[in-house]
């Protein structure tokens, strides 16, 4: 198989996979989250503004950590504000989500 054919096959496979996966919208109920651990799992449906912001901004780049101490929640949010260019509103809502 030459390189051109290989690339075509790869692209077709990728396109088919993407369409199939995107079409497979989740119908499975999400698990109920609890703060600081399961709350950060991506399976959860948005419950409030902070969680929605978390899923839209933080989870866009990385998997959520399984849990962390509430003592560093402010540090994490400030780091994310700089790195993800969060607005002040997003920062406040995210901090509220981490510390209800």
């Amino acid at each position, binding site marked *: 198989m030459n*390189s051109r054919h*290989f*690339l075509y096959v*790869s*692209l077709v*496979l*990728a396109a088919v*996979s*993407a369409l199939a*996966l*995107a079409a*497979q*919208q*989740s*119908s*499975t109920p*999400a*698990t109920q989250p609890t703060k600081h651990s399961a709350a950060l*799992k*991506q*399976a959860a*449906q948005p419950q409030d503004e902070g969680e*929605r912001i978390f899923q*839209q901004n933080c989870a*866009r*780049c*990385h*998997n959520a*950590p*399984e849990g*962390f*101490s*509430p*003592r*560093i*929640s*402010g*540090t*994490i949010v*400030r*780091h994310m*504000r*700089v*790195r993800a*260019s*969060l*607005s*002040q*509103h*997003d920062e406040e809502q995210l*901090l509220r989500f*981490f*510390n209800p």
Partner: protein
Amino acid sequence: MLRMTLGFKIRASAHIIRLFLFALAVLASAHRGAAQDTPLISGGVGFFNSTNAGNTSYIPIFEPLLAAPLGQHVLVESRAALLEFVSPKGGNQSGYDHSHFIGLTYLQGDYVASRHFTIVAGDYLIPFNTYLERLSPIWIGNFQDGPIIANLNFSSSGSGLGGMIRGNAMQRSKYSIDYNYYYSARSANEQFSASRGSGGRTSLYLPEQRLEVGLSYYRLLQGTHENFYGTHVWWEPKDTAFRLRSEFARGQHAEGYWVEADYRTKAFRGLESAIGRIEPVFRMQQTFRLDTIASDGLPSVNTQRADFGLDYNLPHNTRIITSYARQFSASGNRNVWETGIVYRFLSPAWKGKHP
């Protein structure tokens, strides 16, 4: 080769020890009073194995990240890379060759001046496109190797030394726009090497569509002044764990793109089920040489590469990363096999009472 192709600053030096002592001093002097603002230590520790065109290497790697708030508006943050590179000796010799590298990835201070305006000073990752700033940590990337166009490095270190302004320019319910602009001085310092240049990036994010589109620009202001352009498109359909990321970059003498897709299914008891933890990944990338001048980090001939990955997200922030890639170019085709495991840690810098 891992990380060295990603624009990371990986240089053996005893200076790094002093710099980390400095960072620890910052941690120690950080504001202890705020209950949620305790300095943190995060990062990843991993072990990678790679066989590239028949050449095998083993890389234990440690990437710590420190972040320490100072008062209500300042954050000092730094990341470093420590790794050992081990490979079998050639020429029918027994045993292994090895070398180690220690280097700062960045060390910066952030001052949140207002709701739309943050000032960054120090040694920062150049925010050209998205890969280097967002996806390069070992506990984030879906593949061991970064995309080839991450080597379109106008700065050999991938970082700038100077200042940056950034923030959220505008936010509405339907969209938000963020920006950054930076200027870097020239530096030949071992830990803070940088090229003189300036650039910026702006991104539009549509939260309902989960779509982000951005434009990047950089102008090299030393030697032969050159312009670099980039664009990125990210899309994550709502209520799925499917992510599509892509970048295009064009320099004076070469250009290229990559497209990456990854997916986790929720169909079998959610993402935390045994099947939901499986994450197939695919990346397609091409680079094109525009002329015969190979002053950038891209291959000297047109190159195509397809990466097929299968990652597994274990409990306790541990991730197995595997991939196979086939690369085509006029200089020779090759197979690249990679496996690795990464543990991500995240904790306060010291023990204390919960708020």
